[in-house]
Structure formats: C-alpha cells, structure tokens
C-alpha cells in the first residue's frame, strides 16, 4: 500500500485508504474537455511537478471559471495505481483572472503556462521553479516590473532543466568585469578581451541578464533574444526538435512593439 504526504505548507496527513492519494497546492496550466462534463486538468505543483488528472464536473458553469490557466488551486489527487491518470478535486485558492483583461498580462500568462507544458517532464518535481512561477504570476498586471521578472524566470527555467547560463566570469580569461558577450555554445559569459575575433559570432550580454536591474524594455527584449536562443537551440533540440511555443514569441513581439511605440 502506497501513501503520499501532503505538499502543502504545514505538513500533510498520511492517507490510509489503500489508494494513491496526495494533497498539494498548484497552478492550473491548462484544461481539456473530457466527455461532456469532465476536464483533464494539467497543473504545476510544488511537490509533484507537472501533473494531470481528471476533474469530474470541471466543465460545469460553477467550476469552469475556477479552472482557468494561472489559477492557484488546492488539489487532492486520487488514483488506484500511481500509473493511472487519476482524479483531482480542486478548490480555487487565488484567481489571477483580474489581470487578464490586460494584453501584456495575458500574453505573459500564456507564455509561462505554455513554456511549462512544453519543457517540464510529467511528475518531476521542481520546487525552485514552482516558487519562482508563483511569484511571477503574482506580479501579473504590474507592467513596469513584470518583463524583468519574466526574464529572470526564464533564466531559472533554463537552469532547472540543465541549460543554465554561467554569467559569473569570462569563459576565456576568467575576468569578472567587462563581460559583454555570451557564448552560444557553452552559455558562458565572455569579455571583450576574451572575445577577440569571435565577437561577431557571440550573443550580446545585456546587464539585466546578470541581475543588474532595473532594465529598459530595449535591454529586456535583447536579453529575451539570448534566453530565446538557448530555449530554441538547446532546450527544444533536447526535447526532440519541437518548436518552442508560439505564445512566447507573441510576448516578445508585444514587448518589441511597446518599445517601438515609445
């Protein structure tokens, strides 16, 4: 008999029902219709990673608004065997729907949820990424700080999935100052002196990538070009050459247009 403990803060209770069961907090990533009234809900949880389950009645008028992407949920998952898809009971903890009337917030939410669905293997825990995702989504709608927070979240995403950038010192000279390039091959910082004749083949290193904020929109768009390169050329390639989600491209496009409008 297998039992799981709750991932909720404050500890959880051992469940002695003979079935697989856990309770955790999570972010709704997406839902798909399953029959007439049920949905298959995909969530990102603190202690159980990206996880799917059936929500009976999830398509109902009462429950559907609570199961929108981005909503913070209190989840209980039950299944007879661990390999089963199982069923969720989901209670909304915090809705993030208020910010969704704003274009940037909506584009941001779509980029975050689609990247998580794209990148994360099912049922693999990423507590650090989960905590950063919750913080990022809580900032939705704050257009002055959100783009930079999103950039930092993408850096954590790359790090968590094994493609983190090492921007602490120059890969060639070891210098910690004057770092202005990123090597597209190793993801390490390179100084002007270290770049030499290779400078035109290297990616730019805007200061905001090294955590030197606040940053301008132009800098953030440039930095998103760098993280986008690693998402596409390294991460997506490792995931079987699938193209990265279009939603991310739309967010970057929106930021670029905001830049041109200024």
């Amino acid at each position, binding site marked *: 008999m297998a039992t799981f403990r709750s991932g909720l803060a404050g500890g959880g209770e051992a469940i002695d029902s003979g079935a697989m069961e856990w309770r955790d907090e999570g972010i709704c990533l*997406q839902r798909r219709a399953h029959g007439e009234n049920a949905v298959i809900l995909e969530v990102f949880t603190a202690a159980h990673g990206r996880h799917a389950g059936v929500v009976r009645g999830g398509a109902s008028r009462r429950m559907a608004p609570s199961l929108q992407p981005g909503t913070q949920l209190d989840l209980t998952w039950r299944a007879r065997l661990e390999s089963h898809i199982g069923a969720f009971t989901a209670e909304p903890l915090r809705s993030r*729907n*208020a910010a*969704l*009337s704003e274009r940037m917030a*909506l584009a941001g939410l*779509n980029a975050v949820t689609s990247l998580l669905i794209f990148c994360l293997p099912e049922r693999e825990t990423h507590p650090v990424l989960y905590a950063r995702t919750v913080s990022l989504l809580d900032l939705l709608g704050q257009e002055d700080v959100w783009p930079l927070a999103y950039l930092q979240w993408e850096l954590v995403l790359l790090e968590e999935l094994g493609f983190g950038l090492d921007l602490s010192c120059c890969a060639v000279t070891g210098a910690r100052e004057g770092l202005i390039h990123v090597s597209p091959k190793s993801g390490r910082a390179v100084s002007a002196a270290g770049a030499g004749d290779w400078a035109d083949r290297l990616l730019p290193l805007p200061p905001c990538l090294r955590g030197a904020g606040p940053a301008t929109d132009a800098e953030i768009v440039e930095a998103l070009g760098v993280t986008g390169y690693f998402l596409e050329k390294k991460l997506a390639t490792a995931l079987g050459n699938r193209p990265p*989600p279009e939603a991310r491209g739309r967010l970057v496009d929106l930021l670029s247009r905001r830049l041109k409008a200024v």
Partner: protein
Amino acid sequence: MSNSNDIDRLIEIMARLPGLGPRSARRAVLTMIRKRALLLGPLAETMQTVARTARECLTCGNIGTSETCAICRDERRATGELCVVEDVSDLWAMERAGVFKGRYHVIGGTLSALDGIGPEELSLPRLKDRIEAEGITEVILALNATVEGLTTAHYIADMLEDSVRLSSLAQGVPIGGELDYLDEGTIGAALRARKPL
C-alpha cells in the same frame, strides 16, 4: 437490451448525444416508440430533412438550410455592426437574447498553439475580407471570457487595428448572480466597469 437490433442501434446512437447517457437514451427511445405518431414519425421525417438540407452559411458560418443564412440575407441587419463569436451555439445564444440587430461572424474556435489551432484554422482571413466588402464600421468581439477566448480577442484586435472600431462584451456580475459566489477576477472586472446610476 430490447431484443431488437434496430432499437438497440437507435439507443446506442441517441446515447452519444450531449446530455444523454445509455439510460436516458433508452427512456427517450421508449417514449418515442410509445408515442409513435406524435413523436417518432415527425422526428424521423424532420431529421431526414435536416440531414439533407443543413449546411454552413458561406458568409458567416452559421448553420442554416441554404448557402446564405437568414441573418445574412436580411437587409435590415446590414447595420455596419459585426459580432464575432466563437461557435454557432454562441450565435444562437446571442439571437435568443434578441438584442443585437447586426450580423455575425463565427470564427469556429479559439487560437491554441497546444492544439495546433492557428489563425488559418479559424475563419479570420474571411473576417478581414467581410469587413472590407460589407462596409463594416464596428466589430464587436463576443468571445468567451476564458484565457483562450481573450487571447483570440487580442489577436483579432491586433489584426484589425486601425481598420475598424472594435469593442468587446462587458464582464461582470450576471443578472441573478450573488457576489459571494463570484471569483475575484469577475468582481474586479465588474468594479472596473462600474457605471453611474
């Protein structure tokens, strides 16, 4: 089990309809058989007619019985207002309200990168053509207030930017709704869209 393959087949087909399961399909079929003259005969006839004539309107995507639906044929509805909806069921819901007097455009779903639904899969190019051809002055985006619906609405707004006046349905407290049962997002939207009394 009815001891008849034909009746079992009918129950099986009926059970596939939304809102019906095997048990309710059996009850429906039994009622129809008992009221053969009143229900079964007319239903079979009407279904045959609809199966022969039902088609999608080539202009707006509504379902009718001719190439151009009654709404698109009605000259009084050429008001310059075009209401964009996700699905035919949404168009029918708007018509039930009887408030909108313009014409419709059914886009046939929402954008979804995960499901591989892009602008080409929706009838968005046709929407652009209609706006030019029919002299549309206002496009009302009546898409569902879901993340997918809102994303599609923003996409359409970007696509039609500067070419036409754009508006969307208000969001807030439904008539008969109680604040206690509303989510924070809806309450926030309702407060932002408040109006003087």
